[in-house]
């Protein structure tokens, strides 16, 4: 067990090394951060050379990667081209994304499991058709459309009905508010819409997974035997069926969650949240892009999340399914 975990972690480290090297090189070669500076009339060669030196652009690529990696191993993510420390920037961004993603994932799991189970138990009944239709609707609607619709209809109507702003449509919080409860309430008001948006998109897929897994299990012979044993319908459903039907869903949730740590880019942009997604986006398209240090820093955090949650998903699978445990 521990050897297995150690081996998986080691493999994860190797994956991250290869990935960071590849991304570092590709990003560095994919554009010139000084293009804008060069295009500006009246900028002297010396200025450009100084800027290049400051950004280490004059050094060989391998050396730059090595220096970056060396810093990373000493806990230093380096500075972005705009001069800010990548480490603390990402920490801030990560906090923002977590505030958005964690509530959305919790809600999505709850809604997805409940809807999926009901759909499966009532297969081809009206409830199933409605939930299937909604799931496809939410899944196929582009996130920015969904976000804008919520802003324009839900937020505006609610705010008008109440008489003051209940649902904020932009940003993570209103500056200048004091008092723990006020701050918390304000943050919830800001988070409501983006969380709802992300939840609708996410629950839609998960409920389909849950429905399929549940249908699979409900048709299994052991459910028939559980009924033949004389167990109550409720016990058959929740103890025997759900226990097994959750296994594949949990894996999907763990892996999707890891991907969301890297940022829910569209949602963040629609609601002007400065999360991980926007950080990557800015690093690739901002003023001095491509910003190798920002992108590589982002990659280390997002990639680690993916690797860790993949391992977690596998471990959970082993815990939940005894057939995998000893294999």
């Amino acid at each position, binding site marked *: 067990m521990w050897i*297995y975990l150690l*081996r998986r972690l080691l*493999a994860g480290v190797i994956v991250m090394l290869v990935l960071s090297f590849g991304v570092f090189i590709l990003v560095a070669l994919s554009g010139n951060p000084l293009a804008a500076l060069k295009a500006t009339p009246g900028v002297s060669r010396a200025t450009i050379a100084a800027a290049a030196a400051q950004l280490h652009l004059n050094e060989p690529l391998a050396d730059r990667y090595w220096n970056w990696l060396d810093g990373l191993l000493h806990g230093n993510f380096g500075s972005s081209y705009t001069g800010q420390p990548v480490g603390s920037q990402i920490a801030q961004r990560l906090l923002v994304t977590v505030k958005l993603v964690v509530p959305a994932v919790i809600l999505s799991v709850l809604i997805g499991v409940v809807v999926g189970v009901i759909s499966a138990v009532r297969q081809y009944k009206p409830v199933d058709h409605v939930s299937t239709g909604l799931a496809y609707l939410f899944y196929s609607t582009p996130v920015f459309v969904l976000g804008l619709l919520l802003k324009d209809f839900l937020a505006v109507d609610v705010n008008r009905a109440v008489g003051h702003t209940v649902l904020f449509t932009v940003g993570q919080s209103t500056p200048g508010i004091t008092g723990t409860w006020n701050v918390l309430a304000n943050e919830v008001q800001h988070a409501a819409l983006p969380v709802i948006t992300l939840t609708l998109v996410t629950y839609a897929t998960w409920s389909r997974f849950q429905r399929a897994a549940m249908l699979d299990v409900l*048709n*299994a*012979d*052991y459910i*028939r*035997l*559980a*009924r*033949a*044993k*004389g*167990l*109550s*319908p409720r*016990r058959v459903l929740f103890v*025997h069926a759900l*226990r*097994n039907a959750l296994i594949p869903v949990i894996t999907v949730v763990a892996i999707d969650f890891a991907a969301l740590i890297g940022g829910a880019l569209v949602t963040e942009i629609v609601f002007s949240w400065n999360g991980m997604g926007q950080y990557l986006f800015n690093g690739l398209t901002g003023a001095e892009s491509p910003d190798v240090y920002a992108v590589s820093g982002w990659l280390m955090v997002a990639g680690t999340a993916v690797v860790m949650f993949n391992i977690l998903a596998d471990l959970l699978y082993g815990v*939940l*399914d*005894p*057939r995998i445990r000893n294999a």
Partner: protein
Amino acid sequence: MSPLLEVMGLNVTFRTRDGDVHAVRDLTFRLGRGETLGIVGESGSGKSTAALAILGLLAKNARVTGSVKAAGQELLSLRERDLAHVRGSVIAYVPQDPLSSLNPAFTVGWQVAETIWTRREMSKEAAHRRAVELLEAVGIPRAAEQARRFPHELSGGMRQRVVIAIAMANDPDVIIADEPTTALDVTIQAQVLEALRSARELTGASMILITHDLGIVAGLADRVMVMYAGKPVEAGPVDDIFFRSRMPYTLGLLGSLPRLDGVGYARLRPIPGAPPSLVKLPPGCPFVPRCPVVIGRCAEEEPTLRLAAPEHSSACHRSRELAAGVPLFGTADPAPPAPQTLPAVDDRPIIGVTDLVKHYPLTSGRLARRKVGNVHAVCGVSLELRERETLGLVGESGCGKSTTARSILQLLPATSGSVRFGDQELTTQTRRQLRALRQHVQVVFQDPMASLDPRIPVGEIVAEPLRVHERWDRRTGPARVAELFRLVGLNPEHRNRYPHEFSGGQRQRVGIARALALEPKVLVLDEPVSALDVSVQAGVVNLLEDLQDRLGLSYLFIAHDLSVIRHICDRVAVMYLGKLVETGTRSQVYDAPSHPYTQALLSAVPVPDPQVERQRRRILLTGDVPSATSPPSGCRFRTRCWKAQGICATEEPVLADRGQGHPVACHFAEKAAVLPGPRR
């Protein structure tokens, strides 16, 4: 007093895209206290569906009408919640496949205990203690320890016992066992049937035993009901059904069985054709197309189950005449005319195998595969197959018989040993040389649905070997394919159909035609009839016998069914855990079995004769077959053998004649008559 279980006019219809499937039609029977009713039928006869309908366990697309009363209470109108109180405590159920029927996420002890504490005023601890007792009662050794295991960690026989323990848990009045031993080996089957017997005794329950195996019914049932095309066609006391049947289908079924105890090896009498589709049943008796004694009335009016003798009813317009003995199925499948003159038999073996060994490496580890051991599938097997001879290789699953076959065919590279075809050593041939030699040794697999490409018309499947070996001629090829079709009893006009359009028996005939396309000298038949229903199996067995006579073929016939082997084989080799334990002619092995394993095998096979079954004494082996990864030292059978002594663990007995007249690999080999003598 009302009967324990009363089923009246039960009908089950499934709605499908192809139309309504009438799976059970007009099923009526009563089950008295302490009685065992055997329900017999081939696949698709509706016997399992009936069981599930009684318990209210059918899928949602099933429409169930009629009446099912348990102790006077109507069950069909009960809601699921109320039915739950009936299930398990009034009627318990033993399902067919114990692996898929046990929840993979919970230990087996928990699953037995759950049945108890959810239904009774009993603490979980007390329920668990009771569960261990139940597991002991059905013959699970070290039950307390086994109770902590998960289903996948137990063997098939052990799992089946767990399921029986679950059925016993709430002291039911009726136990419905649906093919409880179908997936099991014969020695394990004997153990599980014993467990079922003790379950019946301990709970005092009545039993409905559903099976396709007439031998099991003969040994366990008091009364028998035969089903065909969803309907009961005959019902009565077990002796009446076996000895005084009044229904052509039952008679046909009994006649088509190869017997372990028969006199001589008379040709089987198959029932022609295949069971009807249940979607659009024509009016009249569904057995008409296969029945040898049809009269005009049969096609117009479907006979209902009527009393033909006291307590004995049958659904046949001619049941009264049958009692007087109308000749049936006498020469329904005549042997073909005498073969053309074949060349004289060569005395040298056509296939010779010496010390064949096949090990599979066992690996572990997820990132780097490491070899951690070997599965010793075949360990030093030596065989000889002579011209125009049928050699039977028999043994239970996992004994290495299929691996042996595949190694002989060079489909698997042997680890060591020699395989010869005539004078040529096969193990050292190059690929190209082997390909040429393959023309002479062909194979027929067990599952024709899996071994025939579903997207190729059967005519092409049969022609393909000719093309591969560049023996296809555009002018004569189609005629050759038609000839092959006729040879195996198929209509050449069906050559453009696809495998799924044929019945199981016909598909196996396609497989045989394909194997014969290259005019081979040897056919390796790997369980060629075990996927087929008995009435169809007989036809394929007869075909194989005819082909051997006409074409002078040699057969290596691999099977687990000892009755089929006895019927078709000239010589028999018995295999256990990768080794041969006994070889000899058919009469040597069957009439004077001398290895304890052979004796146990033969004694475990149920015989379709209730009088014989009542008197038989079984040799019950203990435990399961050991793992082939680390087989026992010395004699591999010693862990289950009642004769085992010190020498068995230290010295491996060689396969040699020890005064029995044929080779036996046992230090204490001794002839014993295990099979009942020929009756009548």
